[in-house]
């Protein structure tokens, strides 16, 4: 197989990793019935905090390099979790609308990131290094694409399966889905709805924080303004919807977006050739593609458009295609639960 193609595929897997982790985190949070809309800002703030913590650890010179990275990742996860829990708290205790609080936090955390980031703009710091997995990396094609990556990428592979397993194969996952679908039924069966919501909001938020650190410690090392991940939070949120709140589909979505971005970036630097003929075209317009994809995917998975299209098809095809395309949110998503 073509070397260049393998490199491109491998970099798609690498750059998609923050999107994978963030959308899995948000999938968990939303499955529990809480919307963390703040992703676009909290990714940025987590990136700054993660970088600053790792950099400070490096400066003090006490810790070894892997520990510096660990400090950065830990700090980022903590900040991501705190933001998410704040949304949970304001909804559960203070009865505020999750979307409103989430949106305010989107702007606030983005500005906080720029405010603190100004001190760290374009300074080099610790980075997560590549770590090819022995034996696995030698598998033809799969090896170079999937197993010559860094720890976070491998973590994201495992995370997908863990989230899936937890959601659909354990009792814990059953009550997680229950508190997002029918909290009153879950409550009647003895689940402490609000405590579980806090817990899963925390976990999901921590993953979002980790995704933020994945940018500043790996994908786009350091900090610059405007931040590298600007817009990715919204894309991750859209991926959750496209993914139908299912981890496998979410991952598929993340790779789809990263792939599309890689293709458009490639065309913008190298030009586009069809049958040896260079195509003249204002390539800057290619930056529209991810956002057009976002609209199209949401169009397909939600609401009337697909239904209308399906109604023209034979019944058997209809049923299968619907199961494949439709994506319905958890029924109690964004809705507060009161015991009385």
């Amino acid at each position, binding site marked *: 197989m073509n070397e260049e193609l393998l490199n491109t595929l491998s970099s798609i897997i690498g750059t998609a990793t923050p999107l994978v982790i963030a959308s899995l985190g948000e999938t968990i949070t939303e499955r529990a019935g809480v*919307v963390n*809309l703040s992703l676009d800002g909290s990714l940025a703030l987590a990136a700054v905090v993660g970088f600053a913590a790792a950099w400070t650890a490096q400066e003090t010179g006490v810790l070894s390099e892997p520990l510096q990275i660990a400090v950065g990742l830990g700090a980022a996860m903590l900040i991501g979790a705190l933001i998410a829990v704040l949304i949970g708290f*304001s*909804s559960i*205790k*203070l*009865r*505020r*609308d999750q*979307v*409103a*609080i989430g*949106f*305010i*936090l989107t*702007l*606030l955390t*983005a*500005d*906080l990131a*720029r*405010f*603190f*980031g*100004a*001190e760290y703009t374009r300074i080099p710091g610790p980075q997560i290094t590549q770590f090819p997995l022995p034996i696995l990396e030698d598998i033809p094609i799969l090896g170079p694409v999937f197993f010559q990556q860094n720890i976070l990428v491998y973590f994201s592979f495992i995370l997908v399966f863990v989230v899936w397993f937890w959601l659909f194969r354990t009792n814990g996952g059953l009550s997680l889905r229950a508190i997002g679908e029918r909290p009153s039924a879950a409550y009647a069966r003895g689940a402490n709805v609000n405590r579980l919501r806090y817990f899963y909001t925390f976990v999901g938020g921590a993953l979002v924080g980790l995704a933020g650190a994945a940018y500043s410690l790996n994908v786009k090392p350091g900090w610059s303004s405007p931040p590298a991940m600007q*817009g990715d939070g*919204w894309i991750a*949120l*859209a991926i959750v*919807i496209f993914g139908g709140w299912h981890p496998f589909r979410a991952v598929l979505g993340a790779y789809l977006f990263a792939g599309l971005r890689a293709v458009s970036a490639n065309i913008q630097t190298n030009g586009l050739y069809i049958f040896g003929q260079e195509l003249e075209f*204002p390539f*800057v*317009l290619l*930056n*529209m593609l*991810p*956002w*057009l994809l*976002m*609209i199209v995917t*949401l*169009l397909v998975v*939600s*609401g*009337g*458009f697909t239904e209308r299209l399906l109604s023209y098809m034979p019944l058997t095809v209809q049923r299968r295609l619907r199961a494949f395309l439709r994506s319905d*949110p958890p029924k109690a*998503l*964004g*809705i*507060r639960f009161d015991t009385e």
Partner: protein
Amino acid sequence: MKNSKSLFIQLTFTLIPIIISLVIAAILVSAVGRDPIEVVETLWKGAFSDSRKVGGVVNFWIPLTLVSIGLVVTFRAGLWNIGVEGQMMMGAIFASWGAQFILLDEGASFLLNIILIILAAIGGMVWAFVVGLLKIRMGVNEIFGGVALNALVNVISIYMISGPWQPSIGGSAQGTEPFPMPALLPEYSREFPVNIFMIFLVFALFIIVFTMLNATRWGLNLKAVGKNMRSALLLGVPTERTSMSAFLVCGALAGIAGSYRVLFTFDNLRPLATGGIGFLGLLVVLLLSVRLLWVPLVAFAFAAILTGSTRLQISLKLDSSLAGVLQGLMVLLVVLFQGVQEVFFPQANDSDDITPVDETAEVTV
């Protein structure tokens, strides 16, 4: 009826969060090694030290008030018009098109201004229509439709600036050539560089929308749709048309706001010409729990912070994002404290407005 005790509680619960947000901001400033008092001084001087500075505040206030009025309308209908930023930009692009290609001489400047403002309103409405269509007919949540359309219009603007509309010399992605004089909105004076006509227009639109919301069937329909879409439909309210009209009104106002940025503030079209004013408008309206009456006042305070912050970079080497931090903190804490008040002092509640910050309005993602 409001009694004095509940008024006192309401006032307390507005003041405490603002004070706390100021304290937090002061701590943040100290954390990066600057003096908070100096920051306050810089902000104040940057906004009010002379009439030119006050003019600068007014120049932020005009577009901010316009988008905020529009957002009150969409929030009334229970719609999260995050796409307002893109609608503003589309207005700016439409106005820029007209400014470059509708050539009238100096004498017809006022007429041209009016034409361009109308063009901008149409531009904003076009972009709002797309969000509305995606939401109402195709089930795409308006938050995500809006975010995507914001990004799309930014790409379009960069394409126009670096492509068809690039300056004849030194074409770059910085901006188009300055528009011809007759297209630009005139300054009142060098000491007070604002456009008087626009100020009048803002107040006129404020009064019109206020009346429409509170004294017409349309206003009632909006409220019904915002409170409960299902029962509104069952009661015979044309819900789809009402929602779309809210988007269109907001789009038109945002478009006009966009035109002010390119026809007055910058004199040309540049990337991100909206300067985040659309998002700031969302904060203003959230802070006020969608009460239109106070919009001009709060918008003025926010505009002052924004204007003052431009000096932070120069005199204190502090990132101007501090303004956003302060505004964000204020809104967050005010909204959270409304929750505290509602949960712990429920007797002080008197508002029957639809507010997107509490859960009376049905908003789901």
